[in-house]
């Protein structure tokens, strides 16, 4: 059995899963570094939970290989994989006390009774539930249950830890608190962790890297900042953060929107139809005509939606294309805001204009 000190890398190759004619996962490859916190992010039906279930051994893929630190585990039954898993609804055993729940994996491994007591106590300490050992599960709050589930999944020092939307049952405040707590726990213990969520904010807050999944494949895998700044596909750009899309034609390596020549620092192919993805906070009202490296687009001011600390407004730039612009509510910006229907010009820096594949 490995210890938490020696986290192991995971190497996933060619995972395929079909249910009848429906493809859930298509030849998926993924590498997770030792001690990394990797998040599988995607909408429901993207295959992220299936991949997690395959890793844990509850779903059998049609083909593929999973190696943890070099050991092939693809055909191993769940109880021999030595993987800790935190379930969406915690799956704590209601007929056992908190201590009995945490002791369960140790009893299965025939750990001596004295060691069990010691390790359960330290696991409870780790999740700051000292003295809760004799409680019943139904006497705990949501956050406490979450901690028990964590302690139970880690007490046997598994090779890797899997988490299936573990915070989705908590309310917003507690969820944000637990995100930080999980993050800290991971930092101090350093176990290789694969985390599944459909909440992009959660993924960005917690992960070392995020794998964005869609339609049974990984669309893009990168550090959170890189994913946000440089989405490669339409899906990633719209799933992580907000984006407006301007359809562009690329002729001789230059993107055109209608008759306006646009600038971008992104690498382009020589021709074809692309989408220019723009984050709302990168759109600015243009004061005067274009400097180099700044795109200027003419448009018509639309509705302003007040959102407390910020406001968002939509700007029609012709051909039914709408840009969203977002800014903080400061007195100066608010005062200078054009009225609805007014003709305006907006600016987008070339470095903020990202090209993604159309479709």
């Amino acid at each position, binding site marked *: 059995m490995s210890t938490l000190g020696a986290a192991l890398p995971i190497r996933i190759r060619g995972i395929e899963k079909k249910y009848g004619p429906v493809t859930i996962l298509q030849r998926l490859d993924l590498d997770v570094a030792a001690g990394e916190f990797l998040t599988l992010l995607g909408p429901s039906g993207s295959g992220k939970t299936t991949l997690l279930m395959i890793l844990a051994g509850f779903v059998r893929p049609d083909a593929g290989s999973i190696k943890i630190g070099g050991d*092939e585990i*693809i055909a191993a039954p769940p109880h021999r994989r030595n993987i800790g898993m935190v379930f969406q609804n915690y799956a704590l055993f209601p007929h056992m006390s908190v201590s009995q729940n945490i002791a369960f994996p140790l009893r299965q491994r025939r750990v001596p009774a004295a060691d069990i007591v010691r390790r359960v106590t330290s696991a409870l300490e780790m999740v700051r539930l000292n003295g809760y050992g004799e409680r019943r599960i139904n006497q705990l709050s949501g956050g406490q249950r979450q901690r028990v589930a964590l302690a139970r999944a880690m007490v046997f020092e598994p090779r890797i830890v899997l988490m299936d939307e573990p915070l989705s049952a908590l309310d917003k405040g507690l969820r944000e608190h637990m995100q930080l707590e999980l993050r800290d726990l991971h930092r101090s213990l350093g176990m290789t962790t694969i985390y599944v969520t459909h909440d992009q904010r959660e993924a960005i807050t917690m992960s070392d890297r995020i794998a964005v999944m869609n339609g049974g494949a990984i669309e893009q895998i990168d550090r959170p900042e890189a994913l946000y700044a440089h989405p490669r596909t339409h899906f990633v750009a719209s799933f992580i953060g907000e984006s407006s899309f301007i359809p562009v034609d690329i002729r001789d390596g230059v993107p055109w929107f209608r008759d306006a020549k646009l600038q971008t620092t992104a690498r382009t192919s020589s021709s074809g139809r692309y989408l220019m993805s723009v984050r709302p906070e990168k759109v600015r009202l243009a004061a005067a005509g274009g400097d180099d490296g700044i795109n200027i687009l003419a448009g018509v001011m639309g509705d302003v939606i007040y959102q407390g600390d910020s406001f968002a407004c939509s700007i029609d730039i012709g051909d039914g294309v709408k840009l969203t612009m977002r800014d903080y509510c400061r007195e100066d910006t608010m005062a200078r805001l054009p009225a609805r229907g007014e003709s305006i010009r907006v600016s987008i820096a070339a470095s903020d204009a990202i090209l993604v594949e159309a479709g």
Partner: protein
Amino acid sequence: MLSSQVNATVDGGLNQDTLRREARRETWKAFALLSPGMAVVCLAILVPIGWLFALSLFDEQGRPSFENYARLVEQRSYIQTFITTFQIAFTVTGVCIVLGYPLAYMLSQLPRRIAQIGLICVLLPFWTSVLVRTYAWLVLLQRRGLVNTWLTDLGIVSQPIAFINNFNGVVIGMTHILLPFLVLPLYASMRSIDKDCLRASLNLGASPIAAFWQVFLPLSIPGLVSGVVMVFVLSLGFYITPALMGGGRVVMWAMRIEQTASLYTNWGAASALGVVLLVTTLIILGLFQWRLGSRAAAAWNAR
């Protein structure tokens, strides 16, 4: 790391053979859990009924023929049995609706706690042996039974009324036994009707009576249908009560099967009767698209 290439099969799927083998093993495990129960059902249900079906296709000399089925439509006595059976089944179902719907409606409108007490009165007979209940009716209704004694003592009648050994007796006994099968699913479906639907209809200007007829009744139909189908199908194949309360004068389908088999030992004819009964039952169930489910559990002793 190179080993993954070694594991690759011709079409490129990694570890495909291993995974297939594992999948097969898992299927076998599930099959092993299932098979003892299946074996018992095969031995005591499928094989006997399959055999009866085969028997029905041979005449008394052992030659293949449809004689057994032809007789069912040719002989008056068989036709009479069918008519009697359907008459009783329809009457029992009708009476069950007339008695069961208001009862289920009342129980569904009462506060749960009080309704529970009423439900016990429905469940207790449901859980009591059919024999015990039929015996009770014999005690009550026979020529010198309790009801006739009361009636003569009170001077209402001078001659005892023949309650049993006739059509009415069978209907009374069967109604008593089958009523819970209608009330229980109906009550469950009425309980699940959203009271806000009724409040909404009253709010929209419907009178209480209109609200009942136009909102409550249509919503309760699914529960009613499943109860009705259950009662009807069970009465078609009912044996014990007609055998004891019909006095040999009211011959229903199941009794006819029993007589043909044990009295005349004509297995071909008995089997043909049985097959027709089974097919009729299945057709009715199919027609109502009666889904096996929680409702089937309520029919736990389909005797």
